[in-house]
């Protein structure tokens, strides 16, 4: 059924694109009274009549196939009620209706044979057909991936519409142009040759503009839908895009040859050489159109695959480039810098070679050699190992409910070798010649989460690291990775003290669930963008005095933008009752469920029976008080500092990377 959907979509897209291009080409060439030109125009109109019917027919097949795919039953395609529902109750359905309404009007308009001898009438007739076919083509993007983008939908849609209309102008115009050139190259077409050359030249200019628009909107679409190199190389959607670009290369070569060699030959005074040049141009243009139809197949397939931004990438190479590798030492840094500079000089020379006319070949060769040498010198230090799962997005978020279970799994399966703190000093590795890497060190923390996932799943052959694919579930493996990330974060969190460092948020606060009694729970991340949060890990009776103090200053803290979340180290439903004894009563949220996970996670950053952690509005840990309590005045100064911050960093990602 998906194949039928793809075929129908391709036919529908191709016919819509060809329709628009045909009328664009007719208008571009202008009216002519030469019989051959008139015959060419009639042929194009006759084909358009057929194309509009094909577009409507394939559109109907596409709708039926889509209904079957969405309903999950092939027979739904023939049930009027299901089809009716797909048309009237979904946005793509309504747009389908509008599009086909326009196509029906266009079909009627084309079916009526009118007298267009007068220029005004001719322009009106062809212009109306162009307007209707353009609108119908533009509406295709309303049911594309671009319409499903949630942020800046208008930009995504504008990019998609531009891409479609650019395709219509460039690709749709190619076949009518090839037909015209073919007709003009024949012996009988001598009188129409100037008209054909003029049309080809106008089209060349329009196609260049369309191609620039296509490239720009294509890049924009790719940024929105593919997002990353991993998405490009590692997903079906991304690989289809790469295939599309690969087919585009010969098309561009043909276009450049046409523009720089064949078209100028047609402007010479030697009209005798025109027919052969025209035949060649017609053949090249037809070849370009055939390749463009292949591009359209790939585009239709892209429409039917999950956009790369939503798919899990499978990295195809055994290496990747990482700028982090430069942090390893000055030697690699200098080598990469030297290579980079050589490549830049090479690129400048490359551009210069395109601009200069004299001695172009040696300059070009030198430029390419410089780029190659630069890449050869600069890239090797940036190469690091990569695995199929390198860019896989974690299944679970960086959350206390994942980190704490990850800690338990780590203690059971990993600590004997890697040590309880991750330092690589476990009991079962004593006497090994090669010590284990410190999991908290930068080389380990720089690894992508997906890489850790691969190593935990499959182990490292030859290094004694076993694979845990059969022993741990996928979620458990991600839990361990979240815990390892938290270990690294805890190691560097010693850099965060009791004073807020102005404008320097860098340590992400692990999320946690805030459950107060049996009420519907909230989450730490719910406060993002709204309030700062002071997480208070407390143990009674030791923390009693401090809790009373906090209860007393809660009003002031609230007014200055702080929510206090109290997490008892021994949480029960009684926790609220126990705190209720303070005077005035503590009215801030007191976590009564899931507190052990929060305590275990946050104690990695702040050990001890009592600790307070100040988290800013964006979700970063900014100050930590371990085993001691800040004076209210000191706390308020830190809050004031955060309130005064000018720069607003982005919210941290919910997943580790």
């Amino acid at each position, binding site marked *: 059924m998906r194949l039928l959907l793809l075929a129908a979509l391709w036919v529908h897209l191709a016919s819509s694109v060809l329709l628009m291009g045909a009328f664009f080409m007719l208008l571009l060439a202008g009216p002519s009274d030469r019989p051959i030109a008139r015959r060419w125009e009639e042929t194009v109109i006759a084909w358009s009549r057929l194309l509009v019917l094909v577009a409507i027919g394939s559109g109907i097949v596409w709708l039926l196939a889509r209904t079957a795919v969405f309903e999950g039953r092939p027979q739904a395609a023939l049930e009027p009620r299901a089809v009716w529902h797909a048309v009237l109750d979904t946005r793509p359905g309504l747009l389908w209706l509008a599009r086909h309404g326009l196509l029906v*009007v266009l079909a009627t*308009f084309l079916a009526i044979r*009118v*007298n*267009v001898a*007068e220029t*005004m*009438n*001719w*322009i*009106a*007739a062809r*212009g*109306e057909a162009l*307007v209707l076919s353009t609108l119908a083509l533009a509406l295709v993007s309303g049911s594309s991936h671009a319409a499903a983008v949630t942020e800046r939908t208008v930009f995504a849609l504008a990019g998609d519409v531009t891409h479609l209309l650019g395709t219509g102008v460039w690709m749709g115009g190619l076949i009518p142009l090839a037909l015209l050139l073919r007709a003009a190259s024949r012996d009988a077409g001598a009188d129409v040759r100037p008209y054909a050359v003029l049309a080809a030249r106008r089209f060349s200019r329009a196609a260049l503009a369309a191609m620039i628009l296509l490239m720009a909107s294509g890049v924009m679409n790719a940024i929105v839908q593919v997002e990353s190199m991993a998405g490009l190389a590692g997903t079906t959607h991304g690989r289809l895009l790469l295939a599309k670009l690969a087919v585009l290369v010969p098309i561009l070569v043909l276009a450049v040859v046409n523009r720089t060699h064949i078209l100028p030959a047609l402007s010479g005074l030697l009209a005798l050489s025109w027919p052969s040049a025209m035949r060649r141009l017609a053949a090249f243009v037809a070849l370009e159109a055939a390749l463009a139809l292949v591009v359209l197949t790939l585009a239709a397939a892209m429409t039917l695959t999950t956009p790369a931004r939503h798919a899990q990438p499978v990295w195809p190479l055994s290496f990747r480039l990482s700028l982090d590798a430069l942090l390893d030492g000055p030697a690699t840094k200098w080598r990469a810098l030297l290579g980079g500079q050589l490549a830049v000089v090479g690129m400048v020379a490359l551009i210069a070679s395109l601009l200069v006319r004299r001695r172009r070949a040696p300059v070009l060769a030198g430029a390419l050699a410089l780029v190659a040498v630069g890449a050869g010198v600069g890239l090797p230090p940036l190469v690091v190992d990569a695995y199929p799962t390198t860019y896989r997005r974690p299944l679970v978020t960086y959350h206390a409910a994942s980190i704490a279970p990850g800690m338990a799994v780590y203690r059971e399966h990993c600590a004997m070798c890697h040590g309880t703190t991750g330092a690589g000093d476990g009991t079962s590795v004593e006497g090994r010649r090669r010590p284990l890497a410190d999991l908290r060190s930068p080389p380990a923390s720089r690894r992508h989460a997906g890489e850790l996932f691969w190593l935990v799943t499959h182990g490292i052959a030859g290094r004694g690291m076993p694979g845990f694919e059969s022993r741990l579930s996928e979620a458990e493996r991600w839990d361990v990775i979240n815990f390892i990330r938290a270990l690294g974060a805890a190691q560097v969190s010693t850099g965060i003290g009791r004073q807020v460092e102005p404008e320097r948020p860098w340590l992400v606060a692990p999320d946690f669930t805030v459950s*107060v*009694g*049996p*009420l*519907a729970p*909230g989450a730490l991340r719910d406060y993002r963008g709204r309030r700062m949060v002071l997480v208070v890990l407390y143990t009674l009776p030791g923390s009693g005095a401090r809790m009373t103090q906090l209860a007393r200053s809660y009003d002031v803290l609230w007014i200055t933008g702080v929510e206090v979340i109290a997490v008892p180290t021994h949480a029960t*439903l*009684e*926790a*609220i*009752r*126990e705190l*209720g004894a303070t005077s*005035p*009563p*503590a*009215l801030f*949220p007191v976590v009564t469920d899931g507190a052990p996970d929060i305590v275990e996670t946050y104690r990695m950053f702040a050990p001890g029976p009592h600790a307070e952690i100040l988290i800013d509005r964006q979700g970063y840990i900014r100050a930590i008080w371990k085993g001691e309590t800040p004076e209210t005045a000191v706390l308020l100064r830190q809050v004031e500092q955060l309130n005064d911050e000018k720069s607003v960093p982005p919210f941290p990602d919910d997943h580790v990377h």
Partner: protein
Amino acid sequence: MPVWQVVLVVNLTFAVGLGLGYASWGRRVEALDRELEATRARVERLEREQQARATGARAGEQQWEARGVVRAIFPRANMLVITHEEIRGLLPARTTSFQAVSPEVRGSVRVGDPIRFSLRGTLLDDAAIVAIARW
């Protein structure tokens, strides 16, 4: 009639049709949506009023049902501070202080108890707790 005039008429018909279509039908749909929302709110309010009257409330009073956890009790003021879930038509989820209509209503609830409670009044300022049950 020349083709250009036909085309002009067709396009004008399109434009006027779309414009009028939106002016009469599109705007009507928007107005109906707003009206539906307002009516829904009214029905909800009437339901709350009906519920309130069934338990002997005065005219114009509504009744809200909610769940929460008792955070503090001020017996002399006959007031309870409750961390509650969203109370539809009255308050979002937060911690709020409410008056109880009488000390008996408060019964034996203690700080930390999860409770279901009913509020009655005409608006937030005079909404008071009329019933409490342990959850």
